């Protein structure tokens, strides 16, 4: 069985299914109960699971830190952080405890926690409601960093994240929450760490995730070349092999993200390509990214964000090199 769902509905559907499947799952966060979440991603769950769905105080360190304890007692905490930048309030708990509990106890205590958080620009939200700090999270060993880019992907990746015994930061692109519907299979798990070849291509490989994948697909439409598109889906671990294989074929590559350019994930991917496909590269790898400025308020948001035009220009430049 399957259903046509929007991304935000796929989140809800997955949470419901996992709450049903596993009594240890507990869903909590600010406003996720009675109101069903500020994006309605948890709507109705509290009615079915009043003992495992909780509205919390406004305290992100508390949300993340309490998860460490819940997990120690055998529960599987699935926390919502209302917007990604508010995960910074709990950054210390994430980096010092969630990510390290397994390694510092040599696997005797684990923290199978999933932290869902809406990220990114494009919906004209308030200040600090549109950040994408995936590079920072991917730089913290012990965490997995996961990005869905469609309703079905959401189902498959969120299911895998909740079931994973490693902690996951699950980044949900707000601008895709309601942007389109897609057939979402009923029981669906996508292994973490496997990229998806969205479009195979011969001339250039474009790597993009989350909401930037949609922009990329738009950009590609207008290009008269065989453009391969890869969605890594998990940024740590990163499926380097799939990307490298493609670039060995195409010799050219562009990477898209909305986070600021410097020290963003594109740098990491370029470094890996430099290591593993050096002799195949026919042009510098292009970065189409946000700028090194704080994500501006929404009047300048569209100017900040990479869009299909900018991505298209980046692809063309790379194709034309040499």
């Amino acid at each position, binding site marked *: 069985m399957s259903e046509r769902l929007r991304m935000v509905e796929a989140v809800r559907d997955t949470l419901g299914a996992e709450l049903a499947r596993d009594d240890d799952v507990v869903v909590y966060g*600010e406003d996720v109960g009675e109101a069903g979440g500020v994006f309605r991603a948890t709507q109705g769950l509290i009615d079915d699971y009043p003992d495992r769905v909780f509205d919390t105080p406004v305290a992100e360190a508390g949300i993340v830190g309490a998860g460490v304890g819940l997990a120690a007692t055998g529960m599987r905490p699935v926390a919502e952080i209302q917007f990604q930048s508010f995960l910074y309030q709990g950054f210390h708990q994430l980096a010092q405890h969630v990510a390290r509990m397994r390694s510092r106890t040599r696997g005797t205590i684990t923290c199978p926690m999933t932290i869902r958080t809406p990220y990114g620009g494009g919906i004209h*939200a308030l200040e600090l409601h549109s950040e994408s700090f995936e590079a920072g999270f991917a730089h913290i060993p012990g965490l997995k960093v996961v990005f869905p880019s469609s309703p079905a992907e959401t189902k498959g990746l969120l299911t895998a994240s909740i079931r994973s015994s490693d902690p996951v930061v699950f980044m949900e692109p707000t601008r895709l929450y309601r942007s389109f519907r897609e057939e979402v299979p009923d029981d669906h798990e996508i292994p973490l760490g496997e990229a998806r070849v969205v479009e195979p291509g011969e001339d250039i490989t474009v790597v993009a995730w989350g909401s930037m994948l949609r922009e990329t697909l738009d950009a590609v439409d207008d290009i008269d070349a065989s453009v391969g598109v890869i969605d890594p889906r998990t940024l740590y671990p990163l499926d380097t092999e799939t990307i490298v294989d493609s670039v060995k074929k195409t010799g050219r590559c562009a990477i898209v993200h909305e986070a600021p350019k410097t020290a963003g994930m594109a740098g990491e991917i370029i470094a890996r390509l430099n290591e593993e496909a050096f002799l195949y590269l026919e042009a510098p790898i292009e970065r189409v990214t946000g700028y090194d400025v704080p994500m501006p*308020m929404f009047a300048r948001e569209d100017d900040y964000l990479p869009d299909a035009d900018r991505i298209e220009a980046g692809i063309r430049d790379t194709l034309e090199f040499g």
Partner: protein
Amino acid sequence: MPEETVAQFHIRSVQVLAEDETVDDELVPDLSDDELLTVYEQMKRSRRLDERAIALQRRGELGTYAPAIGQEAAQVGTAFALADDDWLVPSFREQPALLVHGTEPDAILQYAKGMEEGAEIPDGDGALPPAIPVGSQPLHATGIGWGEALQDRENVAITYFGDGATSEGDVYEAMNFAGVYDAQTVFVCQNNRYAISTGTEKQTNTETFAQKAIAAGIDCVQVDGNDVLGVYRVAREAVEKARNGEPVLIEALTYRRSMHTTSDDPSAYRESEEESEWEARDPILRFQRYLENRGVLDEETKEAITERIEEELAAAIEEANERREELDPADMFRHVYEDLPPELEEQLAAFEAEKGGESQ
């Protein structure tokens, strides 16, 4: 000493103008008729700004907006107790306090249009811009109240936050630091009963929010936050104390009558009866009846006030629209550092080339 009591605390609660319009003559602050009218007008001004802003948001002319409807007494009453050089450190719902402190309505509108222009702080304004991360700004007010003391100045900082914000560790740290450094800071917790959808009983197990101060070793007081005279009374005391290096936490009991923000639909989490009840307890209404009974406010004055406010707001909206038209997106590169670093120089050049390309 087997078992003894080593410390005791009690929480005072103050009300001057009761709901039934009785007034406590001992506590009533000595404000002139002009001052009383100013307080009234400021409450009305903010209310009207919020109403117009909601309408503008519905028409797509503003982004997400957080109205303060119902909280005007809590804010105007506290901000009115400040001196010109005092500091205001707001959260994101402080229209009433900002207007009292001198922020222009068009700045508030520009901010709501997603423009950093609206967060510019004019020279000497003694304010910080809105703080979106809940509970993060009281620490700034502590730093200001500490910095003023270090520089032997008398100015105080007043900071606003909600019931929900008190759950953030930062708010506790702010009050605790203030206690240690005798910061010249007044903390105003507007207990408006909700943090988005979350009621106060899910926020904390305490009987009051005022008692949060006990953990920080600073003074506190609770006040009927819909009673502008009571609020002003406790605020004036608190500001005086703070000026002498004694930080104070005020809990103002009020109610957020409208939606959390324009993105919110309160019917998902509260009954409309509750809202009606609080409509009747509206702080402006209560104060208006008081002024009318005292003979300070007549129809003519009311009309003059309304007219003034409407004119101002019309001008503010126009001004904000104009500034929006003039907006230069390339500005986003220009204020990140004092000097443009090479990275941004390059990115700005690429940006301009691209924009140039587009407009050709």
